[in-house]
């Protein structure tokens, strides 16, 4: 008789495949996971508490550090919320700049995901491809605002810096190149037999479950739910551009992979149109009072970040600091489904499923 017993295995918090400092304790029966308990908070900095003692302009750098792979969208959600509360008008050129950097950021974020996801699964070279292209975007951001990751670029009322000479042309060239690069990516990975057998049919769930768990972004759309806030509840200038919202149908890791690749194409499409329509001149800052004091009240504003619905709930008492500031972080909400997906899966699929959700720990822990 062979004696068997349950094995309690601790994964993380210091493990590259957890994309940060995420820890999960799994109970194993042989190689099959019977229970999974995520443990979070290793990167909790109390952003919401800190914000209560800062004025709104000072909070913007803190949003950079939440989802540090997609800092531009985080900047935007805070500024957008305050602007809406105050009823500010944003100059068109500023709004165009915002939209362009947000879509570039979406491409960059998906590239990071693509590279690291394949690294998780065991392919090393895609990571290098993805990061070299992402580097071009970061280089352009660097030129724009002097930072590669934590931009602190947007302000309530507009953007801090105008596009430097020749910058728009640079982005145009990048967008053109990126189409070819994407073809290359697909040639390199998308048809690979080993890759497909690792992700097809893994981590499956249906639309009802996805909605019940409040998933958003590609995690929701992979089940066939057409829900992209850029289309469903348009903000910024998104209603001016033509683009599609790709949806999957199986709700597995492969669909999520395909969706994110397709979303890059759609972002490039938006970028092409936005760069074409970019106003030749104009202000980059609207008329804003010297001290930003939103009127007393409450607002919940949401936008589509690369990871899903990022929301900002502000309670203001008419002071320069928010009375309460709460961020609805897509990574945090999306991650909830992980324990459910893992039960009954083989241990080898843990990293595949976790990577497929696309989390950023700075945002999970906030």
């Amino acid at each position: 008789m062979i004696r068997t017993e349950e094995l309690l295995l601790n994964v993380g918090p210091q493990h590259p495949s957890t994309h940060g400092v995420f820890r999960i304790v799994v109970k194993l029966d042989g190689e099959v996971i019977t229970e999974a308990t995520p443990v979070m908070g290793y990167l909790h900095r109390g952003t919401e508490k800190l914000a209560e003692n800062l004025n709104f302009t000072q909070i913007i750098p803190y949003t950079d550090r939440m989802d540090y792979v997609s800092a531009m969208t985080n900047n935007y959600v805070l500024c957008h919320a305050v602007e809406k509360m105050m009823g500010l008008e944003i100059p068109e050129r500023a709004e165009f700049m915002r939209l362009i950097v947000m879509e570039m950021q979406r491409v960059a974020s998906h590239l990071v995901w693509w590279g690291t996801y394949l690294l998780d699964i065991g392919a090393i070279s895609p990571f290098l491809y993805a990061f070299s292209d992402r580097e071009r975007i970061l280089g352009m951001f660097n030129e724009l605002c002097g930072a590669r990751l934590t931009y602190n670029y947007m302000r309530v009322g507009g953007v801090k810096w105008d596009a430097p000479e020749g910058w728009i042309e640079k982005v145009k060239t990048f967008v053109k190149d990126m189409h070819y690069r994407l073809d290359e990516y697909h040639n390199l990975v998308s048809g690979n037999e080993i890759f497909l057998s690792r992700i097809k049919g893994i981590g499956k769930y249906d639309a009802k479950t996805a909605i019940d768990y409040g998933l958003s972004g590609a995690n929701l759309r992979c089940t066939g739910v057409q829900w992209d806030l850029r289309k469903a509840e348009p903000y910024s200038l998104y209603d001016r551009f033509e683009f599609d919202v790709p949806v999957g149908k199986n709700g597995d890791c492969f669909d999520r992979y395909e969706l994110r690749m397709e979303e890059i194409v759609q972002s490039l499409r938006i970028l092409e149109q936005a760069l074409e329509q970019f106003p030749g001149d104009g202000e980059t800052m609207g008329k804003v009072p010297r001290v930003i004091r939103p009127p007393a009240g409450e607002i919940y504003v949401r936008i589509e970040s690369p990871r899903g619905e990022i929301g900002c709930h502000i309670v203001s008492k008419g002071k320069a600091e928010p009375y309460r500031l709460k961020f609805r972080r897509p990574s945090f909400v999306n991650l909830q489904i992980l324990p459910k997906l893992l039960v009954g899966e083989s241990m080898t699929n843990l990293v595949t499923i976790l990577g497929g959700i696309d989390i950023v720990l700075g945002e999970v822990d906030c």
Partner: protein
Amino acid sequence: MSEENNREQGDAPVPDPKSEPVAEPQAELPAVEQPQAETPIANIPAAEQQQAEQPVAETPPPARRVETDEEKAARRKASLEAREAAKAAAAQAAGLAAQAGTEGRAVAKASGDSDGEGGGEEAPPREPSPNQPRLDRVAAILRELVSEDAVEEAYINEPNDHLPTLVVKNEFWLKSAELFRNHEELSCSYLRNVSGVDYETHMEVVYYPLNMDTRHCYCLKVRTSRDQPTVSSVTPIWETANWNEREIYDLLGIDFPGHPDLRRIMMPDDWVGHPLRKDYVPLDPEV
């Protein structure tokens, strides 16, 4: 006030004959701007006499009057425009209300939203919001199916895209939440966000349920005392509330009876206190 009004009214219909006689005294008098403002008074000679007396002695007061008149005119223009905008908005609201009952609800709401974002509807604050019928309907449903006094407050949050906001009484919260999830007219299957707020006098948990088909979103608030903050958990209704409620419990100390696994999620398990409370005292203020 009445004089100024008369002047304004007199100003508009007959501008030409007045400006001509004034042009001549202007050439004589060094004070150029003041006479123009005074001319609207009915009998011109009297006005001219006044001007002849005044300019040297009382230069500042007329100057001030000139300003106020201009401002008045500007204000009048602005108010006229606002009234026109109000009319347009009212017409739009009526259209929206008419549409609200039909299949085109989602479309109507979307257009209302985009208008609200543009700031176009902010001019007439007293106009009924396009979402007012929806708010009334929801409040009626809650009163009918949950309890007569389930709704403490119901209002429209105008800056937030006219979001229908309801404050639900704590003891009826679980039933109301179920209704929001399952009632065929509401069927908010998606819970966008859950926040907790410490108002120092009381605690509040704010929910944002959403119906993805009609794109109708609501804001539901549940109030609770600060000493023993308790709000029924909605995790059995919306699974997504699970970690959100854990986070609120962790950071604000609100208890959620009915939650399957209410533990701290951000702070270490042995942490003392709830950091997002307004009266929270850090263990070591230097940190």
